[in-house]
């Protein structure tokens, strides 16, 4: 009822030429999006942890810097110590759990990885940090964790999560893995 009233009000008050212009603008925007010329609504620039290194209080910043140190380690398992130390300094830093989850899900203890990923997501939510830019990481890692599952159904579900991550952030998930450089 409200919608109908809104439309009739609009028709009454807005001249038809203006309505046509608005329609044309909307159509052009849709075409641009579909062809890739305009902004891609579903695509997003995935978050890099270095971008949030300056966020939060002193403890969070120090903790996030330790995460970045860990992400610079080679081989990647050398970074585990830094991620754990980052959690010790700031046990509520979602990025520390995310980095640790990325390692465990892809190369380490899968069960731990899944728990860590959930904890990271929970902390991001509760701190209001769960932005669309972090979604590709969460979705992709969820997919990777399911790919390591035992039954076909789970693996197929994992593939579709991974496809979704690829679609959202092909530059990161194009090869199906989240590398430390891509998270850093």
């Amino acid at each position, binding site marked *: 009822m*409200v919608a109908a009233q809104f439309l009739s009000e609009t028709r009454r008050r807005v001249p038809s030429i203006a309505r046509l212009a608005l329609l044309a603008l909307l159509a052009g925007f849709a075409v641009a999006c579909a062809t890739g010329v305009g902004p891609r609504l579903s695509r997003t620039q995935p978050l890099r942890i270095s971008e949030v290194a300056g966020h939060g209080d002193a403890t969070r910043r120090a903790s996030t810097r330790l995460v970045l140190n860990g992400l610079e380690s080679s081989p990647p398992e050398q970074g585990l110590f830094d991620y754990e130390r980052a959690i010790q300094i700031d046990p509520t830093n979602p990025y520390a759990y995310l980095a640790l989850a990325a390692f465990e899900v892809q190369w380490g203890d899968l069960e731990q990885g899944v*728990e860590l990923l959930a*904890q990271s997501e929970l*902390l991001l939510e509760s*701190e209001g940090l769960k932005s669309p830019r972090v979604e590709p990481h969460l979705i992709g890692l969820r997919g990777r964790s399911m790919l390591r599952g035992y039954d076909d159904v789970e693996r197929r579900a994992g593939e579709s999560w991974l496809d979704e991550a690829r679609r959202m952030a092909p530059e990161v998930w194009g090869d199906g893995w989240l590398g430390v450089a891509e998270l850093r």
Partner: protein
Amino acid sequence: MAKARTRKTSTRRNTGSRKKTSPARRRRSSRKGLPPWLRFLGLALALVAFVGGFVAASYVVRLDRVVVAKFAGKPFRVPSRVFSAPTIVYPGLDQHLVDLRGTLVRLGYRESSDTKNLAPGRFVWSSGRVRVHLRAFEHPTRREPARDVVFRLSGNIIEEIREFPGGREVGAVQIEPEQIGAYYGPNREQRDLVTLDEVPDHLIDAVLAVEDQRFQSHPGIDLRRIGGAMLANLRAGRVAQGGSTLTQQLVKNFFLTPERTLKRKMQEAVMALLVEVRYDKAAILTAYLNEIYFGQRGPTAIHGVGEATRLYFGKKPRELQVEESALLAAIIQSPNGLSPHRGSERALKRRNLVLELMHEQGRIDAATLERSRAIGLHLASISPDPGDARYFLDLLRRQLAEGYDSEVLTSDGLQIYSTLDRRLQRIAANSLRGGIEQLEKRYPKLKRDDPAKAVQGCLVAMRPQTGELLALVGGRSYGVSQFDRCTQARRPTGSVFKPFVYIAALEPVRGRPAITLADFLDDSPLEISTSQGAWRPENYDRKFNGRVHVREAIERSLNVATARLANDIGIARVADVARRLGIESRLPLVPSLSLGTADVSPIEIARAYATIASGGIRPETQTIEDLVDASGQTLERRRLHFERVLAPGTAFLATSLLAGVADRGTAKGVRGTGLRGPIAAKTGTTDGERDLWFVGFTPELVAVVWIGFDEPESVGVPSSVGALPIWRKFVKEATGGRIRGAFMRPKDVESVEIEPSTGARALPGCPTHHPEYFLAGTAPEQTCPDRPERRRRHREETERGFMKWLRRNF
């Protein structure tokens, strides 16, 4: 005799010409000419010589075997050392929260005024600026290089950290862990093994100059020195000088008793010769430098230059200066009598004597002698024995005993890096001890003449997300009682068990929870029949409150309402929740379980509350980060372990309830001294006030306090009086009064305005309302005001407002 000679002569004649006699025959003939007694004597002597030689040879062989066995085997017992967690310092941190100066001093860093050449292990503390030359931290996986850094302070806050020189900004620095204890063998010998490469030449020179200047040339014993010593002793009329070489001293310490008998001295000399034959000078010197006794530190015997260097100067041997080497060499003669900690004058005098000897023997030049002699004694203040960390060390030892036998722990020189936070441990020990003393002062009837019967207590603190044990004080005095009440005692928990009842009721089963936070509970008289007769729970004040809010029931810790709720949902469900959260003790499935009648240890309670605090993830209790063997190889690395046992939403609701207890309920005293920030807590007082519990957590710390007598008797005060102040003091000092962070609220928890008297969803027009948390989809459907007409009018008003907005804007 004459007859015998005649007979021999005639025999010779009978056998022919003398010219034809062979030399052998002549010798035989001449022996035959010896008198029998002489021959017998000769034989006896030969036999004695043979037997004596045989015995001596066997003795030497036996001593040789002893020498070889000792050198070829494990010559030294090296106790395993336990270290605290490292201190991490970063910009923005209050330096008091890491006790920066105290940490540096305890680690043996020395304050200096020389800013030009600041050596590793030194710091300069000036107004607004601290420059520290951090020592390298040797560790197989988390090695830290030595680096010179400057902390710029604004008040107590570390504004920035920069490298010196260069000024490159540093994000965080790690200060090496502190040793909190060691596991000794029967002799309580503490040593840190060194190789000859790790020892500077001037230390070797100093030791040789004063102890054995001809070490490189003598064969194990030094006859010139022995002769000199004998003369000196004769002149003095007493034993004024020893003639032992380093090798003899080593042999004496390694194999023999300190008794002064000729037999022992002979044995020492023989063994010294054997050692010199068997081993080269470098091996003997290395063994000596690791074995030599450097005095007592409490009950612990300090051996070897490695440990002595750490103890006296807080550094590694390779960092020693000439005058420091001379001091170490000086005190070898009488480690306790010449200890620089006891009498600096005597130690200084002897150190200068060593320096002079070094100069006389051409080991240092005149300039070095003068420069070194002018320097006073600068000693590090390495902290004394662990003291208040001993309960933690005992716990660690019990845990390690599952994988390492006692012999390994006491002699293999393992390095055990623990999770203990040295600063929190100290605060915990002081808070507990001070709190109990205050209690005794306030209630003199609690005092006991026998310390073994005095009121006791314990405090355990944990990081909830990781389960790392940060502090553990198992009693008010380890000297009086080594029984750890936090990990070894199991006591009834009283009301600290109640949250498990509420969690069981708030946790959805088949999609619906038994209660929401808007519900009411019945606090009217209750009787539950059990196998032992009827059970009638009562409240602390022995009154009943009728219909009460869920929040009110837990905030006031109402027994009857809680027992009824537990009975309604089933006691098995309550026990299941408690077990999932981390309680491992036996939980009898009886109605009174809901009020905490089961015996549980404080560390289990800490873990269960840590699970709530971490949003439903149960951590493994961690006491060790990693374990490194004497050769520097990592034996074990304990990783963090997480397991979700409770939905985050349910954990948040429980946290919210406990936050209410801290803000308005029985635990509101935690706010008494201005402690602000998120706190969730629960008091617990058992029947007859025998056990006083207090559990509380912030987003980053959970701590449990228990107070009571070892032989249960009434303390006579509730937990809010006996245990709460200890918790509050501990947390206030631990956090500096500023609690960081917020409790995690997951997205499936919504905040809805409700009308308190009915628990209905409050709409505009509802006279009273306040926000309450619900799992998504569980908020009440009933509304306030609950009239269809009002609801219709409200909807129409909303629509009219929207249309008005449209008209105004389009």
